[in-house]
């Protein structure tokens, strides 16, 4: 299984819809400081619901993830990830919608609304866990180096 495409709309600095086709193998994302590279990694964590205390999205609350440029803050941020699994496709999408009084977050599995739990069940079957050890965010290497030996041991407790 691998990620075939990531589609980002109105999420963080991606104010216009953007499609990112990806191959199996080794892809590098590059570009100047502040161009939006880490926001692509954040979009994967957001879409799959992998943000836990250790994987933060650098936002205080979900609505901060909606693109807000030059004062305009539109209502909905959306990220869709299309996985290719043999000859089948698995599409997972997530939307955050803001109204004057509240905000809502919806998950979709192959186009139909689903709960975060259902999504996690499918992902865990394929080896993607909520502890997200497969994603190393900017600064994680430094955080591991500066952990106390006790905190490092807790990593083993989590995995066990």
């Amino acid at each position, binding site marked *: *299984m691998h990620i075939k495409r990531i589609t980002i709309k109105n999420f963080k*600095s*991606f104010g216009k819809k953007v*499609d990112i086709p990806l*191959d199996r193998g080794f892809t*590098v994302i*590059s570009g100047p400081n502040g161009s939006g590279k880490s926001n692509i990694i954040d979009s994967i964590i957001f879409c799959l619901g992998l943000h836990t205390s250790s994987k933060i999205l650098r936002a205080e609350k979900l609505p901060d993830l909606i693109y807000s*440029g030059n004062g305009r803050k539109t209502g909905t941020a959306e990220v869709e990830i299309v996985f290719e699994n043999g000859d089948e496709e698995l599409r997972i999408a997530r939307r955050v919608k803001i109204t004057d009084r509240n905000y809502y977050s919806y998950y979709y599995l192959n186009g139909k609304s689903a709960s975060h739990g259902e999504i996690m069940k499918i992902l865990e079957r394929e080896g993607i866990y909520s502890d997200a050890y*497969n994603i190393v965010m900017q600064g994680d290497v430094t955080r591991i180096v500066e952990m106390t030996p006790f905190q490092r041991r807790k990593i083993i407790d989590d995995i066990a």
Partner: protein
Amino acid sequence: KREKFFEVFNALNQNFREIIRNLANGEGELYLDNPEDPFNSGLYMRVRPYGKQVQRLEQMSGGEKSLVALALIFAIQRYKPAPFYAFDEVDMFLDGVNVARLARMIKELSSQAQFIVVSLRKPMLEEADAIVGVTMGRDNISQVTGIRKASMIQ
């Protein structure tokens, strides 16, 4: 519970040893300061970089420490394999030679799983199968310019 802990610990230790040999051409091991009572001990790393003596993490240089942290991350990933991996500028402390070594290792691993790596460093760009360029437009909106590296060479 204790049994499961040691199963994980021993597997990670074995992985860590192999990866340190591959990534830093050295010898490494994980150890607990109080193995009798694992849930009250700390996890330490002892590494002998190539040609040097055994060092504790605190004494090492910035680049050496980050290689050890990467080896621990890879050791965990080998224990719990995933279909894709995403790394965000994990190579920033490394000199050119170590970035190239890390890039080659990722290239090898990318035959078994997908790797999406954010990097500014040349040796990483050179090993990649494809490069996705990201820029910030005048309108303050991120844009993506795709480059298919493999087809570029053809």
